[in-house]
C-alpha cells in the first residue's frame, strides 16, 4: 500500500488525551493519504476534531497525551515520535500551516518583512539578490501591492485580508511539500475570502503543492478540494473524490450534513432543509462499533454493531458503513416551494415598523483632533428608509461593518438615532416600555446574551415581570413552561443554567425570551451564525413556525446569503451604512442587481450540483469609516464603475414597479442585462 506518490500517508492513527473524567478519544483509526499535488478537503462540524488532525501532523498536541499510535508519514518519514528539535526542520520548511485567525498570527512588535525573512533564514533559503528581495518576491506572489512598502509595515497597519496574504506568503516561502489550512477563511468576509481562495487555487496550480484543507464550510471545500474526507467524532466516515462525494453522498452523516445546507437551486426545486442534527459522538468510555450509531436513522444493532466499522481501504469511494448504498436511500422530502411569497396587504396595510431617513453616527471628535481637522465620527447608518409589514420577514444582509448590527441595536432602543421611526403608522418619539415590549431583539451569540449566572427560568421570567404585569408568580411559572415548549425545549430546562445547554438550545432560549413579550417584531441579529448547518436549519425552521403561528414580523440580519431563500420574503442589502438594494426574495435569482449584491452573491460558495456560480471578485480598498462619502460608497471596489460621477455624485435611488430598489448610477435596465450570477445546470432536463 505504500505509494511513493503519497506526500502524506496517515495509517491507523489514533490519539487520546488524559482528562479528569478519563481518557478522551480525539482521533480514532485515521487512514488518509494525500498524493503529490492533491488538495484533500477535511470537513466536519464543531467538535469533530478536524483541527486536531492538523495539530497531530504538525506534532503540536494541545492536550496531555494518554495514548498515541499509528503512523503519520511525510514522504515515508514517520513524524509520530519526533521531538521538537527534529520537527523544526519540517515545520515551515516541508509542512506549512495557515491558521484560522490571521489577525493574531503576526507578532505585533515585528515588521511584516522580518516575519518573512526570519522564516526564510531559519530554513537556510537565500537568493543572489539577498533575503530581502526574496521576501519581497513572495509578498508579490500573494498579490500584495507595493511589497517593498509592505515589508516595513506592522501587523496593525494592514487589513485582515492582507494579513492572511502575509501568512500565505510565509507558508509558500520555503516551497513546502504540504500546506495545512485550518479554517483559513472563516474569520474573513465573504468577498475577501473568495479572492483569497482564488489566490490559493492559482498558487497551488503554479507550485503543485499538496494541501490539507480543513473547514466546516462545505461550500468552500467543494470549490477547492480534489477529494474530500468527512470526519465525525474523530473518525473518518467517508472519503471520495470531491465531485463524487457532493453529488452522491453515501454515509448517513454526510447525507444529513448536505441535506441541511441551503442551495441556490432550492427556489426552483422546492427543496427543504433537513433539521435533524447529529448528536455529539461519544468520546469517553467504551468504543462504539460505529461512531455514528447514536444519531443514525438506519442503525440496526444486529447488523451494525457486530464489528468495528472501519473505512475500507483501496476503494475510490470509501464509506465507513456496513449497510449497502441502496439500503440508505433517503425518503424524498416533500417538494413545496421553499421561497416564500409574501403578499403585502394580505393582513394589514399599515407597516408595523417604518424607518424614514434613519441615520446613526458614532463617536465624537475630540478637542485636539478637531484642531488638526481630524474627525472620528463614524457614520454607521446613513439615511436608511425601510418598512416592515405584519407577518413579513425582511432579511438585512451585508458584510461586517456595513451597519446592519447597528441598525438592529437602534431598532432595539440601544442606540440613539436621527430621522423618523414609525410604529403601526404613528411616530415613535421616545423608546418607551410599550415600544420595547412590541419590538424584541435576539442577539448573535447566546453565550453573550444569556447571563451565565441566571437560570433559564429567571431569564425567561424577566420579560414576563416587565411586560405582562397581570401574571402572578404561579402563572409566570406556567408561562415559562409554555415558552420552552414553543421553542421545542423540555420544560425542566427552566432549572438549568446556560452552560449546561448546547449552542442551538441556548439560542432557542434567547428566542423564547423574545417571545415572552408577545412582540410584533423580532429582530434576529445573526442568530444562526456560529451554529452548525443542521442547527442553523432547525433554528430557521423554528422562526418560520413562530411567524406562521403568531404573525410576528421578523428582521433577519445575516452575512450568509444561502439561508435567505428558506426564510426571507424581502432582502435589503447594506454597504458601509447605506441601504443599496431592496428586493423581493425571488428576484434574488435574476438581474438586475446592484454591482455589490452581484459580487456578494457570487462570493458565497455553495454545494449545489444543479447550479453553476459566475465568478465576480472585488478588488480595491474600502474607504475609512470616518470619511464622509460624497459619491457612491461602493465606488472604490465596483467592477462596473462608470467614471468620475460615481465618486462625486450621490447615486440615485431607482425603483421598478414591483418594488425593487437599487441605489446606483447605472440604469436599472442596463443592470437587468447582466448575466445572472447563477446558471442552471439542468434547465433542459427539468422542464
Amino acid at each position: 500500500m505504500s505509494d511513493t506518490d503519497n506526500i502524506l500517508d496517515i495509517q491507523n492513527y489514533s490519539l487520546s488525551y488524559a482528562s479528569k473524567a478519563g481518557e478522551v478519544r480525539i482521533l480514532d483509526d485515521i487512514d488518509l493519504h494525500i498524493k503529490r499535488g492533491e488538495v484533500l478537503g477535511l470537513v466536519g462540524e464543531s467538535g469533530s476534531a478536524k483541527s486536531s488532525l492538523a495539530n497531530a501532523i504538525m506534532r503540536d498536541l494541545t492536550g496531555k497525551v494518554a495514548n498515541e499510535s499509528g503512523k503519520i508519514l511525510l514522504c515515508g518519514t514517520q513524524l509520530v515520535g519526533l521531538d521538537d528539535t527534529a520537527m523544526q526542520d519540517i515545520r515551515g520548511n516541508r509542512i506549512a500551516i495557515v491558521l484560522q485567525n490571521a489577525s493574531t498570527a503576526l507578532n505585533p512588535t515585528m515588521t511584516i518583512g522580518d516575519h518573512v525573512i526570519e522564516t526564510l533564514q531559519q530554513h537556510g533559503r537565500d537568493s543572489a539578490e539577498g533575503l530581502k528581495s526574496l521576501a519581497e518576491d513572495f509578498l508579490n506572489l500573494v498579490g500584495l501591492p507595493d511589497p517593498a512598502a509592505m515589508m516595513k509595515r506592522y501587523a496593525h497597519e494592514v487589513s485582515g485580508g492582507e494579513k492572511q496574504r502575509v501568512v500565505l506568503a510565509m507558508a509558500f516561502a520555503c516551497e513546502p511539500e504540504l500546506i495545512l489550512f485550518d479554517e483559513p477563511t472563516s474569520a474573513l468576509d465573504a468577498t475577501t475570502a473568495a479572492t483569497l481562495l482564488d489566490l490559493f487555487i492559482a498558487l497551488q496550480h503554479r507550485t503543485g503543492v499538496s494541501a490539507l484543507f480543513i473547514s466546516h464550510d462545505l461550500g468552500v471545500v467543494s470549490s477547492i478540494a480534489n477529494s474530500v474526507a468527512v470526519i465525525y467524532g474523530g473518525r473518518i466516515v467517508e472519503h471520495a473524490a470531491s465531485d463524487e462525494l457532493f453529488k452522491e453522498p453515501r454515509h448517513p452523516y454526510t447525507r444529513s450534513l448536505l441535506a441541511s445546507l441551503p442551495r441556490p437551486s432550492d427556489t426552483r426545486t422546492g427543496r427543504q432543509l433537513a433539521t435533524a442534527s447529529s448528536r455529539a459522538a461519544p468520546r469517553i468510555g467504551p468504543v462504539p462499533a460505529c461512531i455514528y450509531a447514536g444519531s443514525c436513522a438506519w442503525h440496526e444493532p444486529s447488523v451494525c454493531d457486530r464489528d468495528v466499522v472501519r473505512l475500507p481501504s483501496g476503494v475510490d469511494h470509501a464509506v465507513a458503513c456496513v449497510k449497502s448504498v441502496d439500503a440508505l436511500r433517503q425518503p424524498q422530502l416533500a417538494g413545496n416551494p421553499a421561497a416564500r411569497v409574501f403578499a403585502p396587504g394580505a393582513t394589514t396595510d399599515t407597516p408595523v415598523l417604518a424607518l424614514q431617513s434613519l441615520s446613526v453616527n458614532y463617536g465624537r471628535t475630540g478637542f485636539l483632533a478637531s484642531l488638526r481637522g481630524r474627525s472620528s465620527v463614524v457614520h454607521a447608518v446613513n439615511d436608511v428608509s425601510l418598512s416592515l409589514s405584519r407577518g413579513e420577514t425582511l432579511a438585512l444582509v451585508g458584510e461586517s461593518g456595513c451597519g446592519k448590527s447597528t441598525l438592529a441595536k437602534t431598532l432595539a432602543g440601544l442606540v440613539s438615532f436621527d430621522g423618523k421611526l414609525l410604529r403601526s403608522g404613528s411616530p415613535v418619539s421616545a423608546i418607551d416600555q410599550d415600544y420595547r415590549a412590541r419590538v424584541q431583539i435576539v442577539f448573535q451569540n447566546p453565550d453573550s446574551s444569556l447571563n451565565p449566572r441566571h437560570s433559564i427560568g429567571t431569564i425567561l421570567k424577566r420579560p414576563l415581570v416587565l411586560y405582562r404585569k397581570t401574571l402572578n408568580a404561579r402563572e409566570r411559572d406556567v408561562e415559562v413552561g409554555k415558552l420552552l415548549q414553543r421553542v421545542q425545549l423540555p420544560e425542566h430546562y427552566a432549572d438549568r443554567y446556560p452552560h449546561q445547554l448546547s449552542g442551538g438550545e441556548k439560542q432557542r432560549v434567547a428566542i423564547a425570551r423574545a417571545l415572552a413579550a408577545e412582540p410584533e417584531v423580532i429582530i434576529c441579529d445573526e442568530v444562526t451564525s456560529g451554529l452548525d448547518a443542521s442547527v442553523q436549519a432547525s433554528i430557521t425552521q423554528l422562526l418560520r413556525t413562530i411567524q406562521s403561528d403568531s404573525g410576528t414580523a421578523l428582521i433577519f440580519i445575516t452575512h450568509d446569503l444561502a439561508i435567505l431563500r428558506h426564510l426571507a420574503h424581502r432582502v435589503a442589502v447594506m454597504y458601509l451604512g447605506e441601504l443599496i438594494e431592496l428586493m423581493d426574495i425571488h428576484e434574488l435569482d435574476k438581474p438586475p442587481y446592484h454591482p455589490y449584491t452581484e459580487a456578494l452573491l457570487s462570493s458565497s460558495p455553495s454545494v449545489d450540483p444543479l447550479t453553476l456560480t459566475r465568478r465576480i471578485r472585488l478588488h480595491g480598498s474600502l474607504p475609512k469609516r470616518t470619511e464622509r462619502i460624497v459619491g457612491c460608497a461602493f465606488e472604490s471596489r465596483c467592477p462596473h464603475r462608470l467614471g468620475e460621477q460615481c465618486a462625486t455624485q450621490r447615486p440615485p435611488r431607482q425603483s421598478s414597479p414591483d418594488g425593487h430598489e437599487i441605489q446606483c448610477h447605472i440604469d436599472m435596465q442596463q443592470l437587468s442585462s447582466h448575466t445572472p450570477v447563477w446558471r442552471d445546470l439542468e434547465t433542459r432536463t427539468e422542464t
Partner: protein
Amino acid sequence: MSLGFLLKRLSSLVVTALIVSVIVFGITQLLPANAATMILGEYATEDALATLNARLGLDQPAWVQYWHWFSGVLHGDFGISLRTGQAVGPTILSAFGNSAILALFALLLVSLVSIPLGVLAAAKRGRPADMGVSLLSYLGVSLPEFVLATLLLAWLASPAIGLFPASGYVPFSEDWLRALHHIALPVLTLTIVLTAHVSRMVRSEMVDTLESDFVRAARLRGLSRKRVLYRHALPNSLLPAITVIALDIGYLIGGVIVVEEVFSFPGVGRQLILAIQNRDLPMLQAGALLMAVTYAVANLLADLAYGVLDKRIQFE
C-alpha cells in the same frame, strides 16, 4: 508616538499633581491640632492664638490658605517646619536626594534580576526552575519590608558578624565606598521584596504571551526555540513589564519609608514619620506631595516608554 499623545499624557500628569496637592492639603487641614496651638503650646491664651492665627493666615478660608501654600510650593517655598523652625524646602530636598539614591539602586538591581528570573520561570514552566522561582517569590511578596529589614539587621549587622553598619548614612561625595557600605542593607531589603513581585508579574506576562497565537504560529514555522523565546515572546512581555515596574514604584516608595525608619536613614520617609509624630504640618505636606508626584512622574515615564516601544500606540 505622536505629539498629541505626549501632550495628553503631560496634561494628565498636571491634573493628577493638582488633585494630589488638593488632597494632601485637604487631609492635613483636617488635623485636630492647628499650627498655632502647636507653636504656643496647649496653655496659650485665646488672644495669643488668634493673633498668631491671623499672622499665619490660618483665619482665612481654606481655599485662600491652599492658594498661599500652593503658590509657595511652585516657587520652591514649602514653608517653615513647626518642629525645627527651619525652612522645609532645603531639608526635604536633601532628604529626597538621599531617598532617590536608595530607590534608584534598588530599581536598577530589580530590573537586572527580576526580568531574567521571570523569563526563566516562564520558559521552564512547571519544571523545577519555575517551582523554585515561584516559591521564592511567594516568600518575597509575603514578607513585609520591616520584617525583612529587621531580620537582616539583626543578622548581618550584629556585633558577632558585623558585616554592615546598623544605621546611618555617609554622603557619596565624602567617601563613595563607605556610602555604598551604608546603603547596602536598605537597598538589599528593597530589592528582595520588589524582585519577588516584579518577577512574578514578568512570569505571568511571559506565560500569557507564550500561549498567544503568534507565538504558536512562529513555532509552527519551524523557528528555533531561542528565536521564538527571545524575538517573539520576550519583546511582547517586556512592554507590560515596564508598566508593572512603574506601578511597583508605589510599593517601592512605601518600602523606602519603612526601610529608612529601620536603618535610621535620613531620607524623605524618615522626615515624613517624624512629621507625623510631631504634627509638623508643612513638612508632612511637602514630603507627601513630593512622593506622590514622584510616583506620578514614574508612571508617566513608563507610559512614554510604552508609547515609544509599542508600535500600536500611534494615536490616543
